[in-house]
């Protein structure tokens, strides 16, 4: 049974406006409305205009009862635009315009739930500081002044062309985001590199997912997170490394709590996070000793004979060397370096060994490190050596950060060529040139600089023009004082954003007003490789345009629109992306179009048109068996429609995407951090997410009055009671946190959640990165946000008055 799409509509009301009062009357006499049971008297007003504002009426569309003024005449689904969980939201429409939303009940990702950010996703669209028209800095007054799109585009092309003419194509760069649609990313990357002839471009996904990307690519032969969310429920042992799932991905945590197998829950994290508090074993290691710990665990597993020899033989390479390498990580050595006991180490190894379905999950604690790629691969190695991959409830699973980081990894055309390809590979370039009908020479045979190298290039004056799209470099980039110093050196800074007030936009020479989530259309790919559709349900303010259309406009003014004559709409670009994916591990040729995505509850890649090219295994969980939704159309070779399994994982056949089909054991000796603590800076500064109500630099979540009630307005630093007592720091008083980069002041929260010698500041406040040190993983070039040395001092005006 195939439906025509996923907007549910109340035909009667739209067709017949006269029906509305009738329904109101019916509601007023509704016997289930308690207010209606009591009639007003002179002395007591049981109902009236103030009460009716809140009186609930049946909302239809499965919504239950809702206030009359919020009653939709239609609903439609859209994927949330904050994190990578990829929850589906039912957007409530009145005359096509979104007025409210609720989480979609029958979507396989969120099962009718959303976190506070999702519930409040529409609120920021109405913020007063939305960019509503292009703003150009007046050279005389130094102020940003309104202009029109024509002049904005002329200045844009004139300035970038002048810079490229004078200083070469490597003198300009873009910094984009994991927050825009896949189609938009692809158009930007293609426009920049193929149309405009520039080379350097990167994205804020460098700050969150570059490590997973590189680690998977090197180990599996392709950037392919293997899991499906059902694995949270199928595991008997879950190992979380550097992941505070409870707070960072609350809707995924729901899946952990729905696990009926009473699973062992190992949480490896220096902090006693919310997730760690729910652990059966919290492994509170020293910050950045994770690689040593993981090698030590591998050694214990080898020594105990707790490995899957058959799987290792059949599906991997490099195990012998790895086993030899980890012999040096004896329990005593590892215990000494991680601050754990030998007993704790053995217990973790034994728990992993005993598990029949062990899944390993990592997030930013791993990815934001100076040796993050090898650490992620150490996690992958554990899964490979114990054969915990390709089966339900297993996997070495990176939980993604941003809503479309996965889209960026495949199709941004920034660090990799479109479709998870390589710019340095001539065959890949040829494939893309054929798929896009463009000359092979248009495709650069050279890699772009990474984010940190672009920032370095700006600081050194080699890069003079920068185009920032939907990210907030001035707040989020590591060692932000230096980053801001670099931005201020630019000859031309264009910021394309929803808001004019971000720390980065304030520095721009030209602001291009962008439509936000909900004001445009396209697809996101979530952590479990699921394509989801986002819809245009709200009108962008003023002259704001979707990022997609801004890129089209740039193509037009640059004079390369001809190359993009087929890139007319996100829907059209989706068909181009299908062509680009053909034969790749991320093949999506089996997805017809947006309607197909919409009707299927999203579709995980791969889904190839031909059954031979599909490398996936349908989930056959007990739950799905029971609900009958596990119909396996892949094995019948039928054209994939909404009968396709809703949750699928990779590598069930033990074949990987490497040329020899085997996964690789990759490893390197651990390296010390660049800035260890010393007597002058005796504390390790950890950074991370504060609450589930905040998103990154808070540019959107800070616009919702409700969300603002759910997180502390002012920054704070967590410090252990022992350290606080020693430094005479009283709870809730202002302290100074000082690193070699900067000095900030914030309130002290005295709590044993952090260990002695460590302090924690959430990343959502702009002062945090004034302290962090710009250190990068050599493989992924991801910044190491989670380790730098600081000292804490009480302030003279300490008490919080």
């Amino acid at each position, binding site marked *: 049974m195939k439906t*025509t*799409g*996923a907007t*549910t*509509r*109340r035909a009667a009301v739209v067709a017949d406006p006269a029906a509305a009062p009738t329904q109101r009357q019916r509601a007023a006499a509704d016997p*289930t409305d*308690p*207010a209606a049971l009591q009639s007003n008297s002179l002395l007591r*007003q*049981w109902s*009236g*205009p*103030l*009460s009716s504002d*809140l009186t*609930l009426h049946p909302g239809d569309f499965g919504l239950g009862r*809702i206030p009359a*003024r919020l009653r939709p005449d239609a609903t*439609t689904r*859209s994927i949330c635009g904050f994190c990578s969980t990829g929850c589906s939201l039912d957007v409530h429409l009145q005359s096509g*315009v979104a007025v409210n*939303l*609720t989480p979609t009940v029958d979507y396989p990702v969120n099962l009718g*739930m959303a976190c*506070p950010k999702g519930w*409040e996703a529409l609120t920021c669209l109405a913020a007063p500081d939305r960019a509503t028209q292009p703003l150009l*800095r*007046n*050279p005389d007054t*130094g102020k940003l002044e309104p202009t*029109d799109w024509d*002049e904005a585009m*002329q*200045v844009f092309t004139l300035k970038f062309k002048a810079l490229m003419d004078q200083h070469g194509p490597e003198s300009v760069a873009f910094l984009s985001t994991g927050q825009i649609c896949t189609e938009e990313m692809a158009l930007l990357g293609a426009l920049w590199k193929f149309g405009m002839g520039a080379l350097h471009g990167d994205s804020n996904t460098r700050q969150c997912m570059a490590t997973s990307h590189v680690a998977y690519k090197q180990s599996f032969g392709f950037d392919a997170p293997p899991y499906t969310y059902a694995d949270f429920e199928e595991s008997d042992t879950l190992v979380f490394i550097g992941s505070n799932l409870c707070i960072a991905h*609350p809707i995924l*945590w*729901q899946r952990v*709590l729905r696990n009926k197998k009473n699973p062992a829950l190992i949480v490896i994290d220096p902090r006693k996070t*919310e997730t760690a508090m*729910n652990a059966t074993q919290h492994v509170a290691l020293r910050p950045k000793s994770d690689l040593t710990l993981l090698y030590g665990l591998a050694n214990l597993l080898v020594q105990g004979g707790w490995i899957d020899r058959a799987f290792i033989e059949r599906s991997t390479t490099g195990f012998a060397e790895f086993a030899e390498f980890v012999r040096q990580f004896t329990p005593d050595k590892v215990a000494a370096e991680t601050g754990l006991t030998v007993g704790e180490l053995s217990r973790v190894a034994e728990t992993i060994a005993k598990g029949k379905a062990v899944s390993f999950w990592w997030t930013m604690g791993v990815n934001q490190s100076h040796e993050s790629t090898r650490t992620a691969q150490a996690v992958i190695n554990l899964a490979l050596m114990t054969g915990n991959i390709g089966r339900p409830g297993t996997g070495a699973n990176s939980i993604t950060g941003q809503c479309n980081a996965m889209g960026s990894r495949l199709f941004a055309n920034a660090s990799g060529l479109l479709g998870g390809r390589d710019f340095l590979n001539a065959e890949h370039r040829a494939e893309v040139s054929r798929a896009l009908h463009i000359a092979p020479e248009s495709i650069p045979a050279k890699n772009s600089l990474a984010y940190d190298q672009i920032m370095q290039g700006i600081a050194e004056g080699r890069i003079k023009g920068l185009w920032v799209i939907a990210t907030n470099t001035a707040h989020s980039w590591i060692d932000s004082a230096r980053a801001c110093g670099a*931005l201020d050196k630019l*000859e031309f800074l264009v910021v394309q954003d929803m808001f004019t007030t971000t720390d980065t936009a304030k520095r721009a020479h030209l602001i291009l007003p962008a*439509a936000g989530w909900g*004001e445009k259309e396209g697809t996101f790919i979530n952590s479990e490789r699921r394509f989801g559709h986002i*819809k245009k349900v709200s009108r962008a303010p003023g002259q*704001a345009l979707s990022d997609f*259309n801004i890129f*089209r*406009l740039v193509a037009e003014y640059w004079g390369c629109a001809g190359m993009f004559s087929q890139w007319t709409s996100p829907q059209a670009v989706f068909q181009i992306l299908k062509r680009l994916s053909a034969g790749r591990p991320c093949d999506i040729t089996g997805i017809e179009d947006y309607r197909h995505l919409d009707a299927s509850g999203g579709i995980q890649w791969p889904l190839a048109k031909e059954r031979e090219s599909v490398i996936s295994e349908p989930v056959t969980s007990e739950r799905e068996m029971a609900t009958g939704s596990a119909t396996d159309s892949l094995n019948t070779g039928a054209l994939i429609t909404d009968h396709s399994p809703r949750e699928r994982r990779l590598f069930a056949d033990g074949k990987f995407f490497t040329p020899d089909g085997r996964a690789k054991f990759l490893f390197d000796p651990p390296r010390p951090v660049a800035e260890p603590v010393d007597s002058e800076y005796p504390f390790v500064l950890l950074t991370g997410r504060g609450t*589930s109500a905040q998103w990154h630099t808070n540019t959107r979540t800070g616009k919702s*009055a*409700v969300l603002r*009630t759910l997180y*502390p307005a002012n920054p704070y630093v967590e410090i252990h009671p022992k350290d606080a007592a020693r430094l005479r720091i009283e709870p809730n008083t202002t302290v100074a946190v000082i690193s070699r980069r900067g000095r900030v002041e914030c*309130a002290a*929260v005295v*709590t044993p959640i952090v260990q002695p010698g460590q302090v924690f500041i*959430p990343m959502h406040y702009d002062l945090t990165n004034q302290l962090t040190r710009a250190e990068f993983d050599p493989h992924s070039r991801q910044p190491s946000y989670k380790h730098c040395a600081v000292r804490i001092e009480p302030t003279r005006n300490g*008490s919080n008055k």
Partner: protein
Amino acid sequence: MPSPPSTRQPLRESDTNDGRTLIDDLLAEQRQLTAVEQFSRAHDAHEVHGRRYRDLLPANAPAPGQQYAFEVDLDQCSGCKACVTACHSLNGLDDDETWRSVGALHSANVRQPLKQIVTTACHHCVDPGCLTGCPVLAYDKDPVTGIVRHLDDQCIGCQYCVMKCPYEVPQYSKTRGIVRKCDMCSSRLAVGEAPACVQACPNEAIRITVVDQAKVRGKYRRLKSEGRNPKSESNPKADNQNSPFGFRNSFGLRASDFGFHNSFLPDSPNPAITLPTTRYVSKRALPGDLEAADAHELRRAKPHPPLTLMLVLTQLGAGLALMDALTGGAARMLAAVALAASALGVVAGTLHLGQPLKAWRSFLGWRKSWLSRELIAFGAFVGVLGSHLAIGRPLSAGLAALTGLLAVACSAMVYADTRRPFWNAPMTFGKFLGTTLLLGGAGSLLLSALATNPLLPRPLVVAVIVLGTIFKLAVENRIFRFLVDEQDPHLTALNKTALLLNGLFGRLSRGRVACALAGGVVLPALMLVTGAGVALPALALTLCVAGELIERHLFFVAEVAPKMPGGRGV
């Protein structure tokens, strides 16, 4: 500041067919909302979200003596706060209005750190403070479901329920001029739908249960007599059962005072006050040292200028009426000014209301509400005083004075009945009666100076003023017994009030004492020596009134209300 782009170019004529540019087309396209047209589908099989929450609702309606209640499984709550936003969205609340909130309890135990997230809404108490305090019967406890509903159209916006509720439940909206609160989504429950928060919890931590009201009563009423802390006898830090005067006062003190022994929830308000029905359950043994995450926050409370003015003016009026009675009702001027001050005070008080036009119903709550009684008493006082002005007999003067004192006592009860520690009865009565004496004396001194022959013997009046001032300052100073080292792990409400008065409000506190000493001691004493004139009594009265206004302002802003655990970074 980087160098701006160098030039502004003349606008280019875009290539167009019919004068429309690509920009025009794209802007037009941006206005189109295509979701409905492209993705419409029949209004079909979309049943209400019932599957998941069926188990979270009670199977049967409450029997007599029972009611609905929230039950929160602390072990399941992960602190995602979706309940707060879902309640906000599904009930169509104002931008910053939330009927549910999430806080945290911390254990400072270094070996076993714990952060227990706590979600909280209205507790639909067995003996709701909001309901008993409301002067216009704008609250209704449903006889069948026990749900405490607020009648938004009945509300006059006096916010007394905000003061009466120990859990910060009723929320006042300035723009609407009324309070609103959680009604457990009663109309959803009536048709078998789950309340918004229950629907939205990913971990099924919130459910609706049926509880026996008698059991709730039995469970918490015992705390009144039992909540005694053995170490409290001499140490004001732990002295939670003792009022500043050493009277045993089992109510109103923050249940941090009961710590883990609070069988409702650790470090939360004393449940004996209103008998909350929400049950917090956990299979884990919660550690004994749990403390609210915001236990160390010193927050100033909301100022209430109209109430400050009203209390001081009506007490001036009552004081003058008392002085008038001492003259045997001979001093018309005293009675007239007393009437004017009291009437002005009552008018000032109405400025506090969000819906003053509905305030005529405020007598309705007289059976339970001290606010109702206060308003009736001041109505009577103004009436009796007016009659006395017409009659002018000693008896009528005495009656007026008595009514005035009764009305002031009702004012004191309005605050004492909230059972908030800083507003405890001895201190509040002391302050209000002290103000009455002090201002009555200072006012009559000035009026005597203006009158042709002295209304009262000056030494008597001066004695009243000086003694009144000293008494008042002594009463007020009791709070500083609770001044402690801020670093101390547990701060009671009274500790925090003392810290606020000493720290954040230190200048105001000192200014208040200076006003009182100058206007209430030094100048009156001087007048005994130098004789009066008009200037000195006028200055004395001005200083006294200023001092009392500051004191009454501090009475509101330095008050630390009991609250559910909140906190930063939860």
